[in-house]
């Protein structure tokens, strides 16, 4: 499964959820596949996608929140797995798109090849965790996790392959992204 096919399936599942995309190829893939006001794209602050998503989820417990995270980001901020496990926001779905490499910097290996991040999340106290590596299993896991209280951690093994031509960069100015997301969050 490629990043773009996984992102497309997660977006279809997310529907009206507030969605936070991690920096690097995940934001670029998300922005390229489908842009909407409920999407936030990180371009810097590597590691903090889960923190941002948790902040949204704690501030708006009435809204569903999806984090499109990466293995490098999760590894950089594993303390937040503990914080999610401690606070247990039922409205949070934490998706880790795990290609096993740092895809924006030359495909250097990450520790996710040696450490099962969904097991770390489970030990930290997420209500449910799944690991999937094909499209059918991803769809089934999203349906299943969407029907029960979170927080849930879904590790999606993807290939490091990127499309040619590559995804474009996020072309909306960061302050405009902030205002747009705040408006979308306040709208209901």
């Amino acid at each position: 499964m490629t990043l773009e096919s996984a992102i497309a399936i997660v977006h279809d599942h997310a529907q009206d959820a507030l969605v936070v995309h991690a920096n690097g190829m995940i934001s670029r893939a998300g922005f390229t596949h489908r842009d909407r006001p409920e999407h936030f794209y990180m371009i810097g602050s590597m590691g903090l996608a889960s923190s941002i998503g948790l902040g949204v989820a704690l501030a708006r417990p009435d809204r569903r929140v999806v984090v499109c995270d990466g293995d490098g980001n999760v590894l950089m901020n594993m303390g937040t797995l503990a914080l999610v496990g401690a606070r247990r926001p039922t409205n949070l779905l934490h998706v880790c798109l795990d290609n096993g490499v740092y895809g924006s910097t030359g495909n250097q290996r990450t520790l996710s090849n040696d450490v099962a991040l969904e097991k770390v999340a489970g030990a930290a106290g997420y209500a449910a965790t799944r690991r999937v590596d094909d499209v059918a299993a991803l769809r089934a896991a999203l349906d299943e996790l969407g029907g029960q209280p979170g927080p849930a951690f879904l590790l999606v093994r993807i290939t490091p392959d990127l499309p040619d031509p590559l995804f474009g960069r996020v072309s909306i100015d960061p302050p405009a992204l902030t205002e747009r997301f705040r408006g979308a969050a306040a709208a209901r």
Partner: protein
Amino acid sequence: MNPGSPAAAFPAIFVAALRKHGFDFFAGVPCSLVKGIIRELEGGSDYVSETREDAALGLAAGAYLAGRLPAVVMQNSGLGVSLNALGSLHRIYAMSCLLLITWRGHDGKDAPEHNILGPETPRVLDLMGIAHREPESQDGLIEAVGWAARTTVETRQPVAIIVRPGMGA
């Protein structure tokens, strides 16, 4: 310090000022210089005890995106941890946030681990383009909360109040 005022009262007054000026989401990593304020915040349901200062800033960014006005408590050692979040998240995305930063090593005569970043803390904030105040009294701290709320909301940028040692905070 306000001689004669009960030491335990100031943290409650300070937190009440934060709430009065609109701050409604709190996260942080502890410092002994503000243990009273943290205890007071923990009494509410809206304080999140974080694992790292930059993660607390990520949390604050999410809360701001969801319509809250956040404040993050940290020691100045945590400011070092936070520089990338401030530079590549709050500053460029125009996100309001109050940083309540304690000032270990302000005179360079604290424990060794505080004496490099300590004296330079205001200058680090200057370099990051973050407006800050470092009040010298409890009254000054309360006044700074109003300034911080106005400034962070109007500029949509993070602002900082530096809390000196011995403030009874």
